[in-house]
Every structure is written in structure tokens, then in C-alpha cells.
């Protein structure tokens, strides 16, 4: 099978790899780079567990051909914390008990980051809208929404 050479920034570091034609970004991240933070939930763009940021925008890595991120920047949950320091969203998720099984959490955090990056003071309705593509089957949406709002207000407090 033909392999395609691919280079992109992964959480701020340059990576170069060969991928099979037709391989999606989720598989490339997990199997070629070893970044296990994006999760497989459906492979159909229905659950949001594989959400990542491409050039700062929220994307579903299971529906993104790996080749299309050539030369671009990909962010995953693996790059969210700053060294040993948790990102305000991660701290807020912990404090608000916003994870149960944890499987949707990586996607939720990336969707929330995409929101706060473009809108640091979202309303509750905007938070709900922003995570509407992410399914939490433990039905912990309330604490998740609270956590995103708490992270937003802690960000404002620091600013």
C-alpha cells in the first residue's frame, strides 16, 4: 500500500510520519504518534470523543484524513497542560466532578478549549452549544457545563 509522507505540528512539536492512504487523523495520532488522548467512539462523527483542534479550530479527527493536516498545527488533550501545571479547564473539570468514566473527557476539554479561545466569557447557552457535538453517556452534562463556566470565570479573574 502506498504510504504518504506527512509533517505537521503536534502540540507544538514538529512530527514527520508516513501514513497509509485513507488513514484518518485519529488513527495516525493514536497509532503512529502514540498520542492516546483522542478516543474512538463511533468513527462516524457522531460522538465527539475524538475531537482535536486543527489550527485552533475544533475538528473530529475520525472524519479528518490524516493527509489533510500536512503543514498545519494539531492540538490534543496531551498538550493542554503546561508542564506540570493543569490548564484552568482541567482544574475546573476536577473541582466540579465533571468526569465519570472519563472517555468523553478529552473531546469535551478540546471542545471547551475551542470555545474559550474564541469567547472567554461564554454564557451558559453558549457552553451548551459548544459541547453539543460531544456525547457523555454517563449523563454528566450539568457538571461539565458548570466546569467550563468556572474555568471561564477563573480565566477572567486572572486577566
Amino acid at each position, binding site marked *: 500500500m502506498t504510504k504518504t509522507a506527512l509533517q505537521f505540528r503536534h502540540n507544538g512539536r514538529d512530527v514527520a510520519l508516513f501514513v*497509509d492512504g485513507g488513514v484518518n487523523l485519529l488513527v495516525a495520532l*493514536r*497509532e503512529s504518534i*502514540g498520542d*492516546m*488522548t483522542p*478516543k*474512538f*467512539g*463511533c*468513527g*462516524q462523527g*457522531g*460522538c465527539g*470523543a475524538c475531537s482535536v483542534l486543527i489550527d485552533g479550530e475544533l475538528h473530529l479527527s475520525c472524519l479528518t484524513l490524516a493527509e489533510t493536516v500536512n503543514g498545519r498545527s494539531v492540538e*490534543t*488533550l*496531551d498538550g*493542554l*497542560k503546561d508542564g506540570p501545571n*493543569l490548564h484552568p479547564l*482541567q482544574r475546573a*473539570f*476536577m473541582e466540579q*466532578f465533571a*468526569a465519570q*468514566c*472519563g*472517555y*468523553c*473527557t*478529552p473531546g469535551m*476539554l478540546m471542545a471547551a478549549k475551542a470555545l474559550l479561545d474564541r469567547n472567554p466569557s461564554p454564557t451558559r447557552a453558549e457552553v451548551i452549544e459548544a459541547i453539543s457535538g460531544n*456525547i*457523555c*453517556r*454517563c449523563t454528566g452534562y450539568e457538571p461539565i457545563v458548570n466546569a467550563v463556566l468556572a474555568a471561564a470565570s477563573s480565566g477572567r479573574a486572572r486577566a
Partner: protein
Amino acid sequence: MLELRKDIFADERDDNLKEIGKGTQRQDMLGHVTGTSTYFDDHKLQGMLHLKVLRSPHAHARLRRIDTMEAERSSGVRRIIRGADVPRNLNTLLSLINFGKDDEPSLAVDKVRYKGEPIVAIVADSPREAYEAMSKVRVDYEPLAAVFDVEEALKPGAPVVNEVYPKNTFIYHDVYDHQKLRFGDVERGFAEADHVLEQRYQMSPIEHAPTETNGSIAAPDTNGRYVVYTSTQALFFSLDTCAKILDVPSNTFHFIGGTVGGGFGGKVDTLTEPLAILGAMLTGRPVRYQLGREEEMQFGSPRGAERIYIKDGVMRDGRIVARKIRAYFDSGAYTRLSSYAVVKCVAHLPGPYTIPNVHGDVYCVFTNRTPATAMRGFGVTAMDFALECQMDKLAHLIGIDPMEFRILNAYRDGDMKAHRREAKNTALIECVQVAAEKAKWPLREEVKRMSSRKDGGGSRAAISPTPREPEPQRAVASQQRTTYDRAPPAPIHEPPPTAPPPPPRPQAPSPSHGATRFSSVFGTRRR
């Protein structure tokens, strides 16, 4: 005397364990928010192969021929597994607790009994190559008449779904085709009732849809053992099931799990581990078997559908005097855990109410649908839904407040339940009172003052002995005892058996059940 130096670890745990009333952080929360919690699929092993399963497109069909010749030659294929390769290709989950007959193959051999049933497993270098090989497997199906309705399945002449249970019902204790509950005389109760209401309730199967699909990775380990990373909710249950199916000692396996991406009952069926391990045994390589979302929906077992008929007799003053229930659990093509759900359901009848005449018949029925399994309170949830709908309808029928109607009929400490056990630790009245308060639902003062407790409480945790019907005296075995039986021979004349506990006696109505006015409403109903 060796003693653990607890003081070394004193700062790790407060032995007083005063945890109630304050938030306690989950131990795995840091892993969850940093994405470092390791689910089964987060293990990447050297030389890992991928297993995919060919599934039946038919709900019911005979397998005339399975031709894997072309698939074997397909690129990247390491091994094709058929039913004959599975050491014990027939199992039922609850056989581990000696309940039910082995009725389900890991890979179908002669027949498929539901759409999605596994037929052939393909182990290949990549998922894509496994799928390509799968498209080259030729299966000659002879479609058979299928049955999808629980009551149709019980009619004479209905297609036999599973030959292990030719009447399409699970058989309890090798004899009974359903679970029965009998208490009092419902027909007399209906005759005396002011109103009789009969209703039919139908539930749908419900998919757990965990965000992480079912799956496992099995890998050869040292000393002939296998390490298995799995999404199972029931680690040792799955381990033992695999040991039985693969016919090896259970210590062959080292199961690693516990981090589960949502289960809700949908990850207790050991759906993937046996084939993943068998694949590893047959290839000597790590093998990953992960369900896709469509497989999770089609093949992963749902909460079973239930059909429930409830007939109630109720008096104008609000007392339910008779409740007759007939219910059918749709087990799908195999038993899995539905037989147990039925037992649980019957044990729950007639709901948390004191009703003097109760009659229950609940069937575990086989149909050509995806086998059903556990899901959050299964066996009770759907029945409770039906019962509580019925309670609302009854309250409406006789024109009484639905909350008060429940309090009126709620069981109280000391009541005799339909299973001939005395009710203990009851709290339904208090629950309804709190629910009413939270919902700002007005209750009358005397209803607010009512209590589940009898005579101000007492020993609440004790379980009273179960009164039994007197049994006919068994004849003493008369055949000669074998010599290696060291027990003393049974006496020819048995001592008179100890008297069985008396059947429940009617009890005088207790004024402490609540306000005097309500006690008079109950009359002599309470036993």
C-alpha cells in the same frame, strides 16, 4: 506478634471514615482530565493483529456451507477462526453460578438466530485487511421463518429459536417454563373490587451506547499465560467465562481492566475476550478485537424489551385489593442474563405496596432478536415503569391524589409481602413525602404525618424467617446405601419433622401506620 506499623501510613487514611456530607475526589480524576487513564484500546503492543467478525445478515437461517478458501489467501490474513476452533463452543453466562443450560456458541455452526450473530472471525495484520478478507468469505444461508414477538413465540407452531429451549422459554429448575407468584386469591379480590383496570405496557429494547465500544486486546505472556486488556465491567466473571469457553485453567489469564469507558450493564457479557484470546493462542501474537459502533448497536446486547399486562382491583376508598401481572421478557436468541432478570422481576412484584391478593406469571422468552442483558436495574426498571403508570391511572380512576394513593397503599414495617416475608426497613411513605415536598406538591397534614414505621420502630435490620407452606413429608430413600458413604444410615422411622413456621397470620390494623383517619380507611386490610 507482628503488627503493621499503621503510624507510617497514618496520613494516608483517616480510620474514622467520616465521609458523608462532603465531596470526595475520585482517585482517577487526574487521569481523566489529562487523558492518561488507560482504556483497553490505549495499549499498543508490538506485532498486534486485528480481529474482525463476519456477522449474520439474517435473523434466522441455517448455515449450509461456510467457504473461507478465498479469504484465507487474502493479503495480511493470519488466521480464520471458525466455530470448530473454539474448544467449548457452547456457553451460557450464568452457568458459572449453575443457572441455565449452555445455549450460545461463540461462533455459529449450524444456525444463526439473530441478525449480527458471529459466524467467522478473521485475524489479520490490519483492520482493513481483515475487512477485505471478510468480504471474500462465502456463506450459504437457508433463511428460516423468524419470530420477533414474545407472545407469537409462545404460540404452538412458532419457529423454534434455540433448540436448547424448544418451547422458546427459559426453563427454571429443569421444569418450569416461567416464574410464578401466588398470594391470596386475586379472582376473589377482583369480584369484590369496586373497579377493575387492565392495561398493557410494552417496552423497547434500550441500547447502553457506552462512548467506548466493547473490546479487548489479548497477548501471549510468559509461561504460557495470556494478558488480556479489556473493557469488561466484570473482570473475574469474564476471566472465568473465557477459561470455560477456551477450556484452560483460569490462572492462564491475567485480565487487566477497571478503566471502562461507560458500561451501564452492556459490558458484562464477555462479548470479545474469548475470540481475542483464541486469536492470540492460534497466532502467538497480540490480537485486538474492538467493536465498531454499528456492531455495538446490532450485536452488543441491549436492555431487553418487556411486555407487561397488569390487572388491578381497587376499592373506591383507594385500597388496591388485587393485582394480577403477566409479563414476557424478550431475551432475544440466547439467555445471557434475562433468566435472572425475570427472577428479580418476580421478586419485586407487586411493587412496594401491600396488596392482599397477588398473582404473577413472568416468562423469559426467546425470539430472533439480539440477546438482551443487564442494564441498570434490569428486571425491575420496566416493571416499575408499568406499575407506576398503573398507579397513576388507578388514582385517576377513583379520583384520589396520586401521591396520597401511593402512601395509602405503601407497604409498612410489619406488613406481609406477597413473598411471605415481613416488610422491614420500609421507607416508601417517607420517600413520597420528601418527593412531594421537593416538587411543592400539596399533601394533606395527616398524610404528611404518616410513617412507614410500626410502633415507633424497633429492630429494623433483622430478617424474619420465611414462613413456608407445609410440605408433604418425603419418603425415606429405601435403596441400599453404598459402602463408601460413611454417613450413618437414615433411620427407617424419621423423627417427626419440626413444625413449619405458621403461615402469615392476619394482624390487627396498627394505628401507628399514620393518622387515625387513614387507619380507618385501611380497615382490616393490613395483615
